[in-house]
Structure formats: structure tokens, C-alpha cells
């Protein structure tokens, strides 16, 4: 034992060093979040005023203007996307958890994971081929369908996960009362998991709210108000992108302001969801 005493100290030291390195890694991972938020507030806060939420963009050269149309556009797109993504995703998730053969469900789960990993730009291209070419133009519909398609696999997987968290004993108790299967699923199982399912939906919304790539050639963007769902529409992320890569100082300021508003929307959804899941069936046990 005497001999290894020195050796033991060395091992202790090594262990301590690794702890410090790991701690530094954690700091490095979080640092970008702090930096991005800091710059967003520093460069964006000054331009977020009443006009920003109420006015249309001004043409190049004129100072001022806002992103009212883009904010409304993003909300419109999200609403329509939810109309497509939520029912398909939730019902699909219910099917996976409660019905279906093992092999078929494995296949669907696998495919959903592949869809979740599909780059968002690909969705844009696919919806362009699916809707923009046949309809001969960019439209709100195309943008909403692209976002809706992205939401489906996200919602499907969280819904399924939340439903499998519901203990089987509740299903058995309901079966023992002689209740039909679809009623058990709808009125008892889904109800118990409802918090988690809503969480999944909100997280999916937060996720697609910031998407730009699928909108580039579907919703396309619009400098004015949109009055027709068959016409192009503005969206906050699109507007940020257009302004960011433009050569104009004033537009850069607007881009920072838009980014600040967008991130507040997304983070509010994310943090709001966290409070919702403080209950019994949280997504992260």
C-alpha cells in the first residue's frame, strides 16, 4: 500500500483535472446562448417600439417602419400549420400507442424519426413541387403546409411517448368496467396524457415558428399585408433573413429587432411549456 500512495495522489489529481475540464465544457456550451441573447437585446431593443408592431416595412432609404405584416403573417402561418399538423400528429400518435401491430408501428416510428431528421429546406422544395408549381404561385397555403408537414412527425412522437407513459392499470380498470376501447382511449387515456400532448404541440409550434428555410419558396414573403390565402405572405424569420443579408444599416437594425421579438416568442412558448409540465407526466422524468 505504501508504494502506491504517490500513485494514488496522482490519480486523484487527474480526476480533479477532468472535473474542471468537464465544467469548462458545460460553460462553453452555454456561452453562445448568453452571447446571442446579449447581442439581441443590445442591438435589437432600441428598435422595438410601437411602430415596429403596427407599421408596414418602409422602402429602402426611408427610416422607420415596422414588421406588423410579418408578425401577423407568422401567426397566420402557424395557425394554418397547426390545423394540418395537430390532428394528424395527435391521431397518429394515438394509433401508435394504442393500436397497430408491433411491426407496423416500428416502421411508422422509424419513418417519423427520419422525417424529424429531414432538413427543413427539403420540406420547402417538396412543397414547392407539390403546391407552388400546380397553383402557379407562392401562397399562404404552401407555407402553412410546409410547416404543418414538419409538425406532424414531431407531434406524433411526443403524443405517442406521452400516451405510453400512462400506466396500463388505468386502461385495465376501464376495460374491466366494460367500456368500449375507443371510448377508453378518448375519454380516459388521452385525458390523463393531455398535458403532455399539449406540451408536445406547443413545442412543435415553437420549433416551426422560427423556421425560415421551408418558407423561402412557399410563403415567399411579402412587403405588404396579405389579403388572400392564395397570395404570398410575410413571416418574421423570412423578413429577418431578407434584412440581414441586405446592405442597408437601417434594415440591419430592423433585423435585430425582429430577431429579438421572434426569440421572445419562441422562448416564451418554451418556458411556458415548462411550467405546464410541472405536473405528473412531464416529458423529462
Amino acid at each position, binding site marked *: 500500500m505504501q508504494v502506491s500512495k504517490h500513485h494514488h495522489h496522482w*490519480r486523484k489529481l487527474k480526476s480533479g483535472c477532468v472535473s474542471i475540464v468537464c465544467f469548462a465544457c458545460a460553460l462553453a456550451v452555454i456561452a453562445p*446562448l448568453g452571447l*446571442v441573447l446579449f*447581442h439581441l437585446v443590445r442591438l435589437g431593443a432600441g428598435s422595438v417600439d410601437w411602430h415596429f408592431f403596427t407599421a408596414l416595412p418602409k422602402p429602402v432609404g426611408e427610416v422607420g417602419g415596422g414588421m406588423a405584416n410579418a408578425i401577423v403573417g407568422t401567426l397566420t402561418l402557424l395557425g394554418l400549420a397547426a390545423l394540418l399538423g395537430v390532428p394528424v400528429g395527435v391521431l397518429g400518435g394515438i394509433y401508435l400507442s394504442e393500436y397497430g401491430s408491433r411491426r407496423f408501428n416500428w416502421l411508422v416510428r422509424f419513418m417519423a424519426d427520419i422525417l424529424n431528421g*429531414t432538413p427543413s429546406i427539403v420540406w420547402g422544395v417538396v412543397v414547392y413541387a407539390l403546391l407552388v408549381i400546380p397553383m402557379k404561385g407562392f401562397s399562404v397555403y404552401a407555407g402553412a403546409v410546409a410547416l404543418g408537414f414538419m409538425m406532424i412527425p414531431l407531434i406524433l412522437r411526443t403524443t405517442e411517448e406521452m400516451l405510453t*407513459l400512462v400506466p396500463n392499470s388505468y386502461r385495465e380498470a376501464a376495460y374491466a368496467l366494460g367500456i368500449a376501447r375507443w371510448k377508453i382511449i378518448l375519454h380516459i387515456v388521452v385525458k390523463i396524457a393531455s398535458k403532455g400532448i399539449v406540451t408536445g404541440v406547443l413545442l412543435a409550434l415553437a420549433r416551426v415558428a422560427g423556421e425560415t428555410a421551408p418558407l423561402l419558396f412557399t410563403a415567399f414573403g411579402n412587403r405588404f399585408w396579405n389579403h388572400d390565402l392564395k397570395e404570398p405572405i410575410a413571416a418574421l424569420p423570412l423578413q429577418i*433573413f431578407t434584412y440581414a443579408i441586405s446592405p442597408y444599416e437601417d434594415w440591419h437594425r430592423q433585423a435585430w429587432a425582429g430577431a429579438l421579438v421572434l426569440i421572445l416568442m419562441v422562448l416564451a412558448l418554451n418556458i411556458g411549456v415548462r411550467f405546464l409540465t410541472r405536473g405528473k407526466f*412531464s416529458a423529462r*422524468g
Partner: protein
Amino acid sequence: MAMFVLALVVLVGWKLFQGSQLTLHKFGWRFLVQSDWDPVNENYGALPFIFGTFVSSIIGVLIALPLSVGTAIYLTELAPNWLRQPVMMLIEMLAAIPSVILGLWGIFVMVPWLRDWPFPFLKKTLGFTPFFQGPIYGVSILAAGIIIAIMILPIITSVSREILRSVPDSQREAAYALGATRWEVTRIAVLSYAKRGIFGATMLGLGRALGETMAVTMVIGNRPEIAKSLFAPGYTLASAIANEFSEATTEVYLSAIFELGLVLLLVTIVTNIVAQLLIGNFGVGKRVPAGH
């Protein structure tokens, strides 16, 4: 409804395939290995994009992997209990930042800083290798790699953390009982057990990296050339689609862009399948409700 998911997969593949018919016939496999992207003369080769996509993604993974695994180890093995949840929440918030916002921060904050400090330093110290030579523009494959690293840190970290958490405590206890230090326990009992899964997490991150569009488009410089230097601008499959789609006026041009999408889809699918196969065994995602 579940069938819808299958239909969606078929739809995605079929639409891209259909859209790229023209170039598929015209160029065949040459499309993948030709380095000339010349819309004026209707000559399309995707090699610069494939090159840019892989190089920037691999840089991203190389930066992100050690940081993520270190963080995951910190979160599962070292951090005090009260700190774990908040740190994880911050990492999830990082994941929630939209790509376009990271890109905005990239062009106006990160790229100028890189141009003024780290890049000249790298050039001075490592300039003898071909990878750190040539003029420094700021926008570059390396800048894209760093942005990608930031974007995939959260996913690699959280999946690695799940994997580490799935290592049974009995493994750790066995190592402690042998008198191992904390790091030795982590290395012997935890990491060797979780190696495969962490590799899977990396592949998952790589899958994301390959398809990253907006942030990369904003900092990579968008020039379709194959340069040895990491300071040189590049182009990726995703950013080429994003930039050139609206300029694609001829049918062949459009078809070429569809084929870029097809290539991108196939590459990400393969990566994701490998990732799923590697992670699948760890039962990540099959968590039991709290309190059990």
C-alpha cells in the same frame, strides 16, 4: 393517420426524384463528381456543395463532440444535483434559438470577431499547413463549421446525457468498490458502456449539421469552389438550394436544384438511420413516469 407518415416519406422522396428527372438523365452519376456549377452554360456538378457540406459539418462535429460529451459527463456524474436541471434547461433554450437568428448573430458579431482575432492567430501558428492559408474574409467554411457546432451542441449533449443516465448504477458502484476515483469510474464503467450510444448521438448531430440551412448560408460565403484552406468561402447543398432556388429560371437549373435536395435527403437519411440503429439499444425515450 399513422399511414399519413408513411405517405409523407414516399411523397418527399417521390417529389424530389420527379423534380430532378431532367438532370438525372442528362448528367447521371457525373452530377455527383463534377466540380463545375455553371448555370450560364447549363453545366451542373454538385461536388463543391457536397464537399462544403461535409467539411463544414465535420468541423462542426469535431468542435461539438468533445464539448458535448464533457458537458454530458458533467451533468450526469459531477454537477451538484440542484444545478443539473437549470443547466439542461439552458441547453434546451440554446436548441430553441431559430437558425436565422443564429445566422444574424453569426454575420454581425461572430464573423467580424473571428476575422480580427482567432483567424489571424490560427494563420500565424498553423499557417504552415495548407488548411490555414490564404486571405481571411471572415465568412468561410470554418465560420460555418463553428456556427454548426453551436447548433448541434444541444442535441449531442442531451442525447449523450440520456445515454449516460441509462448506464446502470450498479456499474458505477462496482467500479467505486474497486477503489477507483471519480474519473476512473466514469472512464471504466460509464464511458466504455456508453461509447456506442455517444457515437450514435454524434451521428444524429451530424445529420442535423448536414441539413443546416439558414445560419450556414449566412456565414459560409456561398462560393461554389473546392479550396484546401478553411478560411476560404464555400457552399453547401442546403445553402445552394436556399440561395439559387428563386434564380432558377430554366428547367434544367431547377431540376439541378431538386437533385441537390435529393442528394441532401439521401445523405441525411443514411446518417439518421445509422444514428437510430446505434442509439436504439439504449432504451432512450422509453422513460418511466416520475416517481417510479
